[in-house]
Each structure stands twice: as C-alpha cells, then as structure tokens.
C-alpha cells in the first residue's frame, strides 16, 4: 500500500519540486495536488515520504514525475466541434508564411495526433510548423513510437467519424492485432523544445495557435494568470489561445479577448 500524502506533505513537496523542475508547483489547485500526488505515490510505489523527497533531491524520480504528473488528454478529437473549426481555419489559410502551432505541455499524444491527422487529411504538411515541449525521455519515446492508448480505440474511431465521416481511420492509424499507433509518416513538421514551457518557447510573434486545452483547470487563478501572460510574447498579433470548452481566460484579462465562445478560443491583444 502506497503512502497517502497529507496537506503538510504537499506543502513540503511543492516548493522543492518547483526549485528542481523550474515550474511553480505551489500554485496548482490544492485538491488537484492531493489527488495527483496520491496517484504518483501509487504509481511509483512510494512507501514513505522521505523516499519521495530523496528521489527529488538526487534527481532519480524527476523524469518519472515529469511524465506522470500531467493529466493525459482523454481521447483523439476530444470535442470534435473544436477540431472542425480548427480544420476550417487551416483549410482557409493562404499565405507564404508557415502556420505555426505550439503545444506547451505534451501530457499525452492525443491532442498533437489529432492536429497531425487534420494536417495530413488536408495535405498541408509543408505549410505548417508545430512546436512542442517535452521534458522527459518517456514522453519522447511515446511520441516517436506514435503511441496511442488502446483503451480509447473505439472512442477515437467514433470521434474521427464525428469530425468527418468521410475520413478513414486506416489512413492515419496503424491498427492491427499487435499494434495501435499513429502512422510514422504523419510525424513531421515537429520542432521539439527541450524543457518546460516557461523555459523554452517558440520565437516571438510567430505562433498562430497555442493548444493548451484543459491544462489550466489544474492551476489556481494566480498561476493561470502568470501562464496566460507568459504566452503573449510568442503569439503573432492575431494569434489564438485554445482552452478547454469549460475554461475561461482569467477575469479582467487585458491580454486576450473572446474569439469563439462555444469552443473557448481567445485572441491575443497586441
């Protein structure tokens, strides 16, 4: 049975993690931290708090924490209507400048692979560039192998049909008895940024859209405001920030305005 962290344990752990991983873990929502550390302790078979703290100090647990702490995206094409709108925008884009996307936290592959499938279906790979932050070897390995969670196979298939029933799953996904993964030829247009998104960002004024859906639900308002502000510089003047459909930009923000209410897409003010 794994150790269950207390409130005081979390107060001890989060400043230490912030220092080691260069990201503010103290301003996640408290109930989220309690659930997530309980999950982490189970996954890593932590029997005593000191075992976890020692693993942070000597660095032996940091890659595992970076891999396991973020919440994986639940499925390919979560909220198909969002992806339909995005597909229309990509399809209508005509410029000699590349269309740049940024996924600041690759918690799992589903969000990125949804974007790659759309790009492939429109045959616009040459016109698109995607930045993504990866801060641990396991996420990099999952990405390169095109890993998809087989548990979501039927859900992914039905979401693809909801996006466009003319699309054929077999054009994008290797789906055999032994394997369920994104086809390797779709893994292009990618620029991996090493480290977390506060340390490594795309060039200034370059990004058309930041895909950051359902990540800030785990932050408190203070951290949300800080992160929203940190995105402004790299967005192009009419750049977009996509949040989850039940998320809003922080109250009284003077950095973004609402662009699409149903899909919670915001446009930067600059």
């Amino acid at each position: 049975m794994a150790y269950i962290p207390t409130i005081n344990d979390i107060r001890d752990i989060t400043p230490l993690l912030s220092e080691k991983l260069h990201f503010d873990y103290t301003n996640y929502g408290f109930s989220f931290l309690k659930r997530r550390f309980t999950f982490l302790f189970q996954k890593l078979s932590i029997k005593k708090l000191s075992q976890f703290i020692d693993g942070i100090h000597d660095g032996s647990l940091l890659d595992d924490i970076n891999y396991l702490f973020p919440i994986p995206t639940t499925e390919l094409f979560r909220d198909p209507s969002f992806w339909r709108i995005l597909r229309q925008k990509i399809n209508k884009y005509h410029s000699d400048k590349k269309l740049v996307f940024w996924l600041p936290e690759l918690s799992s592959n589903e969000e990125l692979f949804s974007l790659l499938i759309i790009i492939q279906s429109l045959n616009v790979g040459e016109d698109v560039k995607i930045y993504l932050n990866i801060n641990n070897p396991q996420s990099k390995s999952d990405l390169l192998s095109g890993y998809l969670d087989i548990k979501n196979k039927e859900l992914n298939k039905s979401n693809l049909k909801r996006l466009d029933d003319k699309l054929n799953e077999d054009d994008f996904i290797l789906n055999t008895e032994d394997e369920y993964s994104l086809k390797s030829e779709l893994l292009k247009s990618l620029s991996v940024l090493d480290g977390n998104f506060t340390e490594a960002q795309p060039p200034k004024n370059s990004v058309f859209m930041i895909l950051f859906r359902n990540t800030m639900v785990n932050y408190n308002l203070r951290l949300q405001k800080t992160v929203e502000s940190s995105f402004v510089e790299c967005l192009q003047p009419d750049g977009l920030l996509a949040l989850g459909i039940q998320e809003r930009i922080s109250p009284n923000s003077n950095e973004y305005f609402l662009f699409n209410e149903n899909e919670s897409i915001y446009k930067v003010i600059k």
Partner: protein
Amino acid sequence: MTVSINDYKAIVIGGSAGSFSVVSKMLAKIKPDFKLPIIICMHRLKHVRSGLVDSLNIKSNIPVVEPFDKDKIEPGKVYIAPSNYHLFIEFDNTFSLSTEGVHNHSRPAIDYTLSSAATSFRGKLIGIILTGANKDGAQGMKQIHTKNGYTIVQDPKTCDIVTMPKATLDLFTPKAIMSPDEITNFLNNLE
C-alpha cells in the same frame, strides 16, 4: 425533527439511469426563492454537450447552468456537472473541473463531486442519491455521512434502477429514505 436551512450551505445530488426525469420533476416543484445552491452530478453522454441544461431549464423554477472551471458557487442556482469533466468543489467556494481518468466508468463521477463537497462543506451539506445503474456515488454519500452532513437516499421502491441507492444503503444508514416527492417537500420545507 425540524431541519433549518441556515445549518446548510449547499445541496449535492447524484444520479444515473432514470435520474433525469426525477431531477426534472424536483426542479419543477422547488420553490423559486430556494436559497441554497444545488449541485447535481448525473452520468451523461460525453458527446452531448448541450441539451441537458436546456431541457432542465424548461421546467425548473431555478436557473440551471453548467459551471466553468473556477466559477464561484452562488445561492439560488442549480449547477450540473458538464459532460466529459469531473466536477469538484474547492475550499474557497468555487468549482474546479478535471479531465482525470474515468471513475466507475464515469466522467463526471458522482463520488468525486460528493466527496469534494463533503470535504469543503463538512456537516453543512445535504447529500442526496437518486436512482442509478452502478455504485458510483455510494462512497461519496458515505463521506457526507462521516462528516455529519444530512444524507437522503431515494427509496429503492421508487427507483427505475436500484443499484446506486442500494450500494449506498449497504455502506451506512442515511438520515432519510424518501420518494422523489418527499425529497422535494423536504427541501421546500427547510426553514
């Protein structure tokens, strides 16, 4: 026994199969000036984003909304857990949402909403479990009971599917077992 509305800060309700019509009838009969927030977590289809709130609002005497992440919990409103998100209640009287994994095959999971409400409101919470086809919600109701909240289980004789109320009754003895009409009367008669 008289139960005073001033002893409570919120009502939290869980339900699954068959609970939509129960909730709809309850909200149609609840007093328009009912002052406690009512937080409802019902199992629902993940791909149907709209419709549920609109359907409930047609008959409800109190406005029904799906909360956004970090929304404040306000009196005189009915909140429904959005599809494909877990709904939690925080100490600062706000909602938080999460896309964490399914619990009891469900997202939203009733246990999560009820347990977090019990942690935040402690004894100042009325928890109600309605008809449903799995055991989700039973542990959350037990949390409310353990923290001295007021617990009501829908009378299994009035349920479409009894699994959820029975799973709750297997864990502890609630303050009351009531039919949907009795639950509505109880809420309307809180003084």
